[in-house]
């Protein structure tokens, strides 16, 4: 992709907690209207990376740029105000707020306020379930409904790049399908997506490019047209088994802070 269409650009980011370095120098970029899938076994740094990008977790090195502007020194509210939204993994949202209140709150950002009613119409159209649930507290909803609300809140923030961490976790296949369709619809409006998930079907249905994270490094990447083999994919998900080939493919190994 050419430089002027790059929205989010992550360069050589390291992150971790205390002495434990979880992300060891990851670089990736997401273009306008593009969807990038983040694959890899659990506990290898995907969530830590995503949290570091939006300032929810500590970032120990590297740069993050959004539309050419450095955002790695900004706080989360400022990052979101610039158009980078993040729906964290297993997010419980606000259990004692109603669905309506949550959506309304998500649209109170400066960048979202003027289009709040239009976006509300959009998300209620995408997730009709939320209409009937509007007056109910979020804590009383099922996991699937809550995940839909989380994505809807992400959209209400009117971002230019939306990060989704495990959006299908714990959801039934039918619900996954609904969410996939919705996300494809949103993508079509020009929104960029960075998605980590455990469901390969889902990811490859959604994304243009993929990137595998193992032991805090990217160990492979490609486009969804050149789908990896089942063997390779098992390796991505369960880690290690086929590591020699996967590791060899690592294009950007910077030996950070081992």
């Amino acid at each position, binding site marked *: 992709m050419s430089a002027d269409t790059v929205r989010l650009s992550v360069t050589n980011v390291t992150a971790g907690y205390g002495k434990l370095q979880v992300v060891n120098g990851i670089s990736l970029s997401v273009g306008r209207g593009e969807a990038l899938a983040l694959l890899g076994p659990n506990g290898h740094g995907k969530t830590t990376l995503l949290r570091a990008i*939006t*300032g*929810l977790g500590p970032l120990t090195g590297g740069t993050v740029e959004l539309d050419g502007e450095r955002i790695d020194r900004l*706080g*989360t*509210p400022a990052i*979101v*105000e610039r158009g980078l*939204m*993040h*729906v*964290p993994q297993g*997010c*419980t*949202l*606000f*259990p*004692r*707020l109603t669905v309506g*209140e949550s959506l*309304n*709150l*998500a649209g*109170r*950002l*400066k960048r979202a306020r003027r289009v709040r009613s239009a976006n509300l119409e959009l998300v209620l159209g995408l997730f009709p379930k939320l209409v009937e649930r509007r007056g109910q*507290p979020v*804590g*009383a909803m099922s996991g699937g409904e809550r995940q839909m609300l989380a994505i809807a*809140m992400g959209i209400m*923030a009117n971002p230019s790049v939306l990060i989704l961490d495990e959006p299908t976790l714990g959801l039934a296949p039918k619900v996954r399908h609904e969410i996939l369709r919705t996300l494809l619809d949103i993508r079509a409006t020009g929104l960029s997506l960075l998605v980590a998930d455990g469901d390969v079907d889902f990811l490859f249905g959604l994304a243009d490019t993929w990137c595998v994270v193992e032991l805090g490094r990217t160990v492979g990447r490609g486009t969804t047209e050149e789908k990896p083999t089942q063997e390779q994919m098992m390796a991505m998900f369960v880690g290690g088994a086929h590591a020699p080939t996967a590791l060899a493919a690592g294009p950007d190994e910077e030996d950070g802070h081992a």
Partner: protein
Amino acid sequence: MLDGLVPVLVSTLLLGSMYSLLTAGMSLIWSTLQVFNYAHGAMLIIGGYLIWTLSSTAGLPLPLAVLLATVAMAGLGALVELVVVRPLASRPDGTLMVMVATLALAGLAEGAVQLIWGPENKQVQPVTTATFDIAGVAVRWTTVLAFLLAVGLVGGLMLVVNRTEWGASIRAVAQNRDMAMLLGIKPGRVYLSVFAASAALATVGALVFATTTTLTPAKGSGPLLIAFVVLVFGGTASLMGTLVGAYAIGFIEASTSYWIGLQWSPVAVFVLLVVVMLVRPEGLVRRGS
């Protein structure tokens, strides 16, 4: 026994109103930051002295004095958050540190009040000393005023917290800080406003307090304990619980003083508190699902 009912109820009305005003701010801070502000009683005392200065010394009409004092105290509350709470709250052992710091702050406030206003008793003159009659018992109009203030302000706060965007962001920060920040809410600002609102409410509580009893620099511990007891009784999570708890404690106190003896009322309240904690410890601190 029944002949005491009216005076007990009137007394309950006054005490409950005072207690709900004392506790509402504390409850707001607790539900947002999950800390107890041990300086809350001291803030109330400062508020009371401010009202006294503005009305008795500067000669301003009482309502104006209360208004000015409330605004000043809101500023002081914000300052406390900024200087004392903020640097400590983000530490791993933040809750304990904040509580110890506010405890120290209470001592600081006591000394400061003594330096500024001296150790003598002060009393704020009530707006009116007029009374009216219920079943042969003279009731002060100020009791009615206190009730209206309590229900109006605490009820108003409930409306603000439950119906406005500011209220929603307070609840959002309390329930899920990360997600709140992802919606552009700055937790620091929310905390600041919560401390300001809490101090403002305490100042109105101070009006009732300072007209019913005298002010001395060391009097802050009384209201603080009452606030603690109300928090446990009414459930710490909701302002409605605060309101109910405040009047319940007011009733227990009024009835034990009337029927058993004045010195037994705090013991009765605390003993009941311990019993309640033993029987339903989680029940009383449980949040609404």
